[in-house]
């Protein structure tokens, strides 16, 4: 547990390192709206953006095919690119893909690899800061979602989730519950109850 802090608020007893914290003199301050656990000196952002990192799994939408390079919309200020020669299936504008970031170039464009087209299915976007909670510790939450809804779920760290088959409505309801209640304890148990229809 902890207390909610806003940008510019002092973090007493903070002694680690975090992209979401800055120092002025010998004091630490939060850059974001987050939950601060002063006992453990830990700040968890409630709202946060996604910065592309090597190895991130993402879901994107093909924007255009230009000279054998696909440009991909990633729900972020930076685009992805994928070489068509490394992709088995030809892609078209509007196609939804899953991919892994192989490299990030100088202009912060993400070079994509292991590109896979996602057919059918629906995508929803959530704040990227909620993705870790949707996955859960050791993927417990996402496994529970798949089991409870019989949906195929692909989760992009860029805040895009692809849902196919199974009980879409239940999956979406559970995901929005996780997003809204991400900062509360006992969530795994409540999502389990929702999926089992006990509410």
């Amino acid at each position, binding site marked *: 547990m902890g207390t*909610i802090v*806003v*940008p*510019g*608020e002092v973090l007493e007893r903070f002694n680690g390192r975090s*992209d*979401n914290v*800055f120092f*002025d003199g010998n004091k630490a*301050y939060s*850059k*974001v*709206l987050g939950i601060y656990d002063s006992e453990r000196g830990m700040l968890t*952002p*409630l*709202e*946060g*953006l996604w*910065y592309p990192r090597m190895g991130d799994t993402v879901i994107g939408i093909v924007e255009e095919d230009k000279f054998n390079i696909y440009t991909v919309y990633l729900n*972020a*200020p*930076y*685009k992805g690119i994928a070489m068509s020669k490394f992709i088995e299936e030809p892609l078209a504008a509007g196609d939804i893909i899953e991919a892994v970031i192989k490299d990030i170039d100088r*202009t*912060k464009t993400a070079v994509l690899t292991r590109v896979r087209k996602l057919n059918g299915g629906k995508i929803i976007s959530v*704040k990227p*800061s909620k993705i870790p909670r949707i996955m859960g510790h050791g993927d417990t939450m996402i496994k529970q979602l798949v089991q409870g809804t019989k949906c195929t779920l692909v989760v992009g760290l860029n805040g895009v989730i692809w849902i196919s088959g199974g009980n879409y409505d239940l999956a979406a309801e559970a995901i929005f519950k996780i997003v*809204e*209640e991400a*900062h*509360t*304890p*006992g969530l795994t148990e*409540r999502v389990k109850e929702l999926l089992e229809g006990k509410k």
Partner: protein
Amino acid sequence: MSGGTDKPELIVNGKRLDGRDMGDLRAVKIEAGTLKNADGSAYIEWGNNKILAAVYGPKEALPKHIADPERAVIRCRYSMAPFSSLEEHGRSGPNRRAIEISKVTKEVFEKVVVLEDFPGSKIDLFIEVLQSDGGTRAAGITAAAVAFASSGIPMLDLPYAVSVGKIGEHVVLDLNKIEDNYSDADMPVALGPRLNEVLLLQMDGSMSRQDISKGLEMVTRAGSVISQVQKAALKEPYEKVSSRYR
């Protein structure tokens, strides 16, 4: 500000027309996350002002020539609804006054938003005044700070703004429309509470060096109240959910 011939008496028996003392703030209410599509948003009611602020981004900077390879660029549009004032129907779209306010508002956020985290991108800030009653730029900046923070964009401070002015001999806080129309001076100020420095300062009218210093003190005092309202608005949606499971 105009010294009209039929200038009303703005201070009667030591009280202002709406019953406030010289250093009193109007009631301020803020709601965070009002607009579904925006990445961050806030709705503020400040006295009779009603204002929406929304943040979109960071996103790809288009057209390309506006992009800065070192940092994100902020675009700001402050605008007033043509039905926002009690008087005649206004013209739609930003006029010269609105364009100036957009510029100085943008500059407030260029100081506190961590723009270096998003090189080459742009962040849009839109402020729509739905109902105006004096002090809309200050209320707009106060709401915009909440919209920014609710979007998750990193910031070094959570700025607020309020105006002070002069009515006769008195330095007064937070002028409403009628006071603004007939006051002797108006000075909107935005402060970063952590930095404790001035991020926006405009002045128009006649004030002494002492008046200005007194005015800035009033701003700081009111600021602690405004900051609390901003923080409460940001925390409220989360605390509401938490309280269900306590």
